[in-house]
């Protein structure tokens, strides 16, 4: 048995646990404040999406999602680590060199985000049968819906580029499940995956730009 066949069969056999894991990871991306946890969850979400994609497109194409997701997580990790280091050591004139703890800035409490995600889950269970997405199995339909809803919630709740950017990428990951089921073209897979890497680059750049605001680096060219 070839490795690709093995991955394909595993993805079919473990569909439900993989889908639940993907949903859980997407929820953590929106709820958690800690940037390491959020990036780890995004990388794991990409791996689970790759497994789910392996059910609908050739396994090699699906695995691209894991590679791209890992790459984006790595790029963002470098930026986030740099910002974390700089904000720790940054000396603001009236701060006396203390840890200023500026980053990441969140506009809401973790408990509030947890509650909104829980409400969203209730909404999904109430509405999922009324939504028709063409060509998708009910399980994949629920995953796509959940990722889209969580992504929109993340975009509404977060202004911090890392969290908002990962929320956007989460939504795009869900949309890929639908898109690649409907349109199985190698060129489209390549363009969408390439677009995700570019998006990851911009997110990492904006993480740096915003993270350095309010420190001694504010206003300088980055």
């Amino acid at each position, binding site marked *: 048995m070839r490795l690709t066949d093995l991955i394909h069969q595993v993805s079919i056999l473990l569909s439900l646990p993989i889908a639940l894991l993907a949903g859980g990871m997407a929820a953590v991306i929106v709820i958690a404040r800690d940037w390491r946890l959020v990036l780890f969850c995004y990388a794991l979400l990409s791996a689970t999406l790759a497994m789910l994609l392996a059910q609908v497109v050739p396994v090699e194409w699906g695995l691209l999602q894991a590679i791209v997701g890992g790459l984006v997580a790595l790029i963002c990790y470098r930026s986030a680590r740099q910002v974390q280091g700089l904000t720790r050591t940054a000396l603001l004139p009236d701060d006396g060199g203390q840890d200023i703890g500026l980053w990441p800035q969140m506009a809401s409490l973790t408990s509030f985000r947890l509650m909104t995600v829980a409400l969203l889950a209730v909404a999904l269970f109430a509405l999922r049968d009324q939504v028709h997405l063409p060509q998708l199995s009910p399980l994949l339909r629920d995953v796509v819906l959940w990722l889209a809803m969580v992504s929109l919630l993340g975009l509404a709740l977060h202004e911090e580029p890392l969290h908002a950017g990962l929320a956007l990428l989460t939504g795009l990951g869900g949309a890929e499940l639908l898109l690649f089921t409907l*349109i199985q073209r190698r*060129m489209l897979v390549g*363009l969408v995956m390439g677009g995700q890497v570019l998006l990851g680059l911009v997110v990492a750049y904006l993480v740096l730009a915003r993270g350095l605001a309010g420190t001694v680096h504010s206003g300088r060219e980055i």
Partner: protein
Amino acid sequence: MMGGVALLFACLFAAAGALYWLRRIEPVAALLAAGLTAMLALGLWKLPLGVPLRLAGRPVLLSQHVVWEDLSLQITPAAQALLVFLLSTGAVTFVLAWRTYQGRTFYPFGLMLLAFWAAAALMEPLTWTPLAMAASAVVAAFLIQAGKAGKTRGAWRQLLFPTLAVPVFLVAGWYIDQGALNPDNPTPYQEAGWLLIVGFILLLQPAPVHVAMPAVAEQAPPVVSAFLWIGHQATVLFLLQRFLVSYPWLAADIDSAQWLLWLGVLTALVGGILSAVQGTLGRFLGYASLYDYGVLLVAMGLRGTAGLPTVIWLLLTRSIALLTLATGAAAVRHHMEGDGLEQIAGAASRLPWSVMALTVGGFALAGMPLTAQFASRWAVWQLVAENDPRWALLLLCGACGVLIGTVRVGRACFGRLSGSPVEREPATLALLALGLVLGNALLGLFPQLLTEPVAAVILPLSTFGP
């Protein structure tokens, strides 16, 4: 034989790469970028599309198809008009950016933006074109941030909506393909129609999803903002026209004209009213431009025999109005302590030509007499009033808002200079500002100067034929 598409993209991307390394020598970068785009615009305007040519000893066919798996790109007469417009706007903007301190990375990234807008205009399948718009939004995010640590709201908002539009268009494309398999079943076309409306709302960003424009205006250098709006909005309207011509059921079943009219009037009203009450130059620029964009959407909604020429006319006149306002705003913002209305007091005494450009640009966006936009706006109001006089009244309310905003900004510039010394505007900047003001006055007095260029592109844009 080399195709025009390959030549165009090779020139733009190679020059972008080279200018990135030359960006620290700003005059060279600016003049090279302006020279290249002007040359490409001139070449595309003058050279025939369907006749083989010899360029540097090599055979070139400008209209040749470039096919890459499922993608194909071709310069059609309609796309040729848009390319000439975008490239010539780019040439003017690169010169203005050099004297108004817009950031050194503008030249390479500006060329890349032009390449992505061109790709969107030339690309087939049609429903894949938002991929190029999303790529242009990625590049625009770097331009808006301009290498500065600080707020990221403008860059993020500019990026968000085109990215969200991509899956919507792609799913719509699948429905369109399904509709073609079973022409008797209207459901796939209806689904595709609604998805395309959502997709175009995300790409056009009218009110109430207009949040990117004020945020970009607040954060980005003003001339960069104006360039982004002119290019992005012209390309999206071009795509909309391509969709409407390629899929006639979109206009018939969904009543897209009515949607555009409503959204346009709402956008113009929101932009006009809010531009009257802004406390900073950047946000005034954003909302005044939003008003102008609303009027453009209204003209697009009118379509028909008079609507399309009016849209083309407006696109040309708004470009000069926006660039005039942005040049004045950029100079004032750079030389004064900030762009708050209380911080620009006294600008008129040190930067007289820039302040003149600022006020003339504001008046032009309001559609005042003796400015570039007067005649084109008059035409829009007449057409709108024929449909429903209440809409014309709402547009007039918006124009009053922009007018009040311009007067407030102008008054602020005429106040007393604050303590810190302000450098006088350089002679080249004064000359550029004067040129733009005179250009506005010339088009205000002789609007018929644009008749020929507008007439030349009506047929290709209304049919999208070869």
